[in-house]
């Protein structure tokens, strides 16, 4: 026998059940955002009130993955909820709110001074949708004169969160682990003196936000120092080498051959002079500006010949226009530490 203990819901649509926003957020994270099109489809089904509009059911979920269209959807959902909330006499958000939040999040990620990371995208992307769902939850609660029923797929959803979240986190680490390490390093102020492991020299941070990261992040594991620009994609790696065959000429030639093996030398120019404030220590600055298929990048390599060792700092930037200047400034700021000079 079936015992009815509560009034039936006004609708049999599962989307008329509440979806707690914490769980929604975790579902978005655990599915790497793929929960959003599912949510959109269900929301479209609910808003259609039984009408099977193929455009809504199929195109809206796809559209949610593309920013301008996603903003339209967010506006549409928020507007729909606002009307319902007003009918219940409750205040509602401006329907532009979630859409603008979505745009702001993306703009923030594009133009943020810190490195553009997969992690913030992952963490921030669901927020506008969570906000809209929050409005929806309020609407359901008002319609039911209480909190309203929670959706019935709780176990499945928590199972998805439990399985997906570690996978997504692992994926994030795999994709962006180095960058996350970069983020963990303290940002330096302009002019800060940075010293390599061998203590032979210092370089100056050319702008705020440059960071020293651990060896092996961009260069070889035996690198002496590794420094990354605030953008995260321009870096400099220092090496200290010694040996009977190591000369300024030989080191410059080896590096030139290595860069030449990657691509053409491009616009290559080398100059040599004495390292400032040194006792006639020769240094070489080699600039390689390469362009292939419209993509520009540049290397700047500083090599210093001490009596017993060579210092080489290899700088790279995928944006020569903006980053080559600071990179060269960084390299040219190299000064020998006291006691390192002959």
């Amino acid at each position: 026998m079936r015992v009815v203990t509560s009034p039936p819901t006004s609708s049999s649509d599962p989307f008329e059940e509440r979806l707690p926003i914490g769980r929604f957020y975790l579902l978005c994270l655990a599915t790497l955002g793929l929960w959003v099109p599912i949510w959109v489809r269900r929301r479209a089904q609910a808003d259609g009130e039984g009408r099977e509009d193929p455009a809504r059911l199929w195109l809206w979920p796809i559209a949610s993955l593309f920013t301008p269209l996603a903003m339209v959807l967010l506006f549409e959902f928020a507007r729909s909820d606002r009307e319902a909330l007003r009918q219940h006499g409750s205040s509602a958000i401006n329907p532009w709110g979630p859409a603008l939040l979505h745009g702001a999040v993306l703009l923030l990620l594009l133009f943020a001074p810190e490195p553009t990371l997969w992690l913030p995208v992952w963490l921030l992307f669901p927020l506008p949708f969570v906000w809209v769902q929050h409005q929806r939850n309020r609407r359901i609660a008002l319609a039911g004169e209480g909190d309203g029923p929670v959706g019935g797929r709780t176990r499945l959803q928590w199972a998805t969160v439990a399985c997906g979240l570690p996978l997504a986190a692992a994926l994030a680490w795999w994709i962006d682990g180095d960058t996350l390490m970069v983020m963990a390093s303290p940002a330096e102020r302009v002019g800060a003196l940075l010293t390599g492991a061998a203590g032979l020299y210092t370089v100056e941070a050319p702008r705020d936000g440059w960071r020293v990261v651990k060896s092996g992040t961009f260069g070889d594991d035996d690198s002496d120092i590794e420094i990354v620009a605030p953008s995260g994609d321009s870096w400099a790696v220092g090496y200290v080498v010694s040996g009977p065959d190591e000369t300024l000429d030989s080191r410059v030639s080896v590096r030139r051959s290595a860069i030449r093996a990657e691509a053409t030398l491009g616009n290559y120019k080398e100059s040599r002079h004495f390292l400032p404030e040194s006792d006639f220590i020769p240094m070489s600055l080699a600039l390689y500006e390469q362009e292939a298929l419209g993509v520009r990048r540049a290397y700047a390599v500083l090599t210093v010949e001490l009596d017993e060792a060579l210092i080489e700092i290899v700088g790279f930037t995928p944006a020569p226009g903006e980053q080559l200047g600071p990179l060269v400034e960084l390299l040219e700021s190299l000064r020998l530490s006291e006691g390192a000079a002959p």
Partner: protein
Amino acid sequence: MRWLLVFLLASFSAAAGAEALPEWLRFAPNLAQPLEAAKAVEISEERVEALESEGHAFVEALRSSSMNFGVGGRLVERVTVARRLMTKEGVHAAGTLRASIRSDLTRVLVESAYVLAPDGRRTAFRPETIQIVQSPDPDVFSDVHDLAFPFSGLAPGSTVVLVLVKTVELEEWPLPWSQLHYPQRGAPVEQFRVDVSWAAGETPIALVANDPQMECRQPTPRSHQCRRSLVPALASDPEVDWLDVVPHVAIAQETRWKDLARREWELVTGAQDPSELVPTVRQIVDGARGERALRRLYRFVSDEIRYVAFAHGTSAVVPHPPGVTLERRFGDCKDKVALFVALARAAGFEAAPVLVATNRYELGELLLPSWTYFNHMVACVERGGRVCLEFTDPSLSFGSLPIGLEGAVSLDLAAEAPSPTTLPARAHGWSLEVKTENILRCDGGVDEKSTRRFARGGAALYRSALRSMSREARDAWLRENYQDVMGDRGSDLRVAVEGVSTPTKTLDIVSQASYAPFHPLEQQTEFYDYDFWLRDMGLSMRTQNQRQPLRSVGLRVASTGEFRLCGTRSFSFLGPELDFESRFGSLRRQYERVHSGLVKVRTVLEIPRQVVRPEDLSRYNRFIEQVVGQSNVVIGYDAAGAPQ
């Protein structure tokens, strides 16, 4: 054979000394007579031990000079030397005392000469063993004699003592008398003394010392006295202008530079009326006018009057009359200058005789007006600037001075207000242009042709050396010189020199050679080459000095290298532009890609004339080694299009 010659010469000299001493030299009857100031030559044993521990084999216990300018211009000078020989090495190296005498003007009495043995016994010098030697230079004849006193019976601990009394009749000397005394020598000097006095009515004597530790005073209105004890030995070094760095005591009859210059001017120009030389001038200039005429006069005196010095007595400072020099066709520097000045004046040019101190470059080291600072003479003319002419080296071009003479202290005798100045000096005494054409053959080898062009003083040095060689010896020298620098890998080597016979401003050495490949061209993408001549000349400017300042005459090497690739290959990248700059000099290089198969490399190494302080010597050498080490040429080329 050499020993036999020495033996024969010694025997002859000994015989000559025993049988016939020159009339200007006498020995006192008791040469073992102890010094008046015998105490002064005593050195404590502690001091001897200290000096030995410092590595000294002997020490000058006393060096003193006591001068008295008497009535009638007679100078009597008593010179005392007492030398303690501390070790066997000291006995070997310093057991013979020496003195230099101008015999035409000086009478010498050997007042004391003995060996003081460690046990206090004195053994007199044997006069028959004295050696009297004149200048070994076959072109210099003078009354200068070197007296050598080879003391006998020496052992470690002996002291050799010599007292000479020199008498000079100053009335015969045409210039104010002057002497320079140097307290610091190769060995330590325990006591250094100078005393000067002069009689009433005689020209007062000036005395100036630039040794801060020398104690000088004027005990009476007509006397000076200087003393210094424990003078350390000179710190030796191979490249030093000693006269500029060693303190001295200058003594001279009071005069002014102006008066000294005027007197010397009279001596140079007063001997002959220039108008008497007009026919000779016409013959020499042969119709030429202006500077061409002046150049012909210069070439005549430089080339046609050979260098032979007759410098007896006052001829040490007084040139022979131009007519005499003209007739003899020889003369020394001042004879040639006197002749040139007379010829130039007869031709209507103003030419000034100029005294030169060939080993002095610091004007501040001339303490008082004295001719003794100067040992050479040149002439200077105004040709849109002061042009100074050196006549003793026919290898020099008109207006070029020997590298070592540039910047030397001088006294222009014709100046309106004569005072010491320095001769014109170029920033770079050595100037070399190198042009090299390299063809990188398809087999990887290199064909090279290079021209080295030396200018002015450097050209004259090479010219002078090459002129003295036979053709065969010259060719051998040129090849050896080339291979010393370039190595002996080259084949088909040809080296020629241009500009030896004619003293033009430049001298060219042209060489051609082929070099076998290390690897075929298609197996390489980078070409390396040394800038050999720049490297060689640069490294030659390093100094071995460690304690004394270096006077670098300066060097400029301008090297232009052309590199051509064979076939259809093309150069891909150019080597580093160099901009090494320091206070010791600079090295600059630029590459130019003329077209895909031709690159020009221009390099300039400049080390300006400078004085390098002792504390900077190692840095100066390091600068040179570092820039020369960075002078390698590197050019990249593409393998594409390489002939198969």
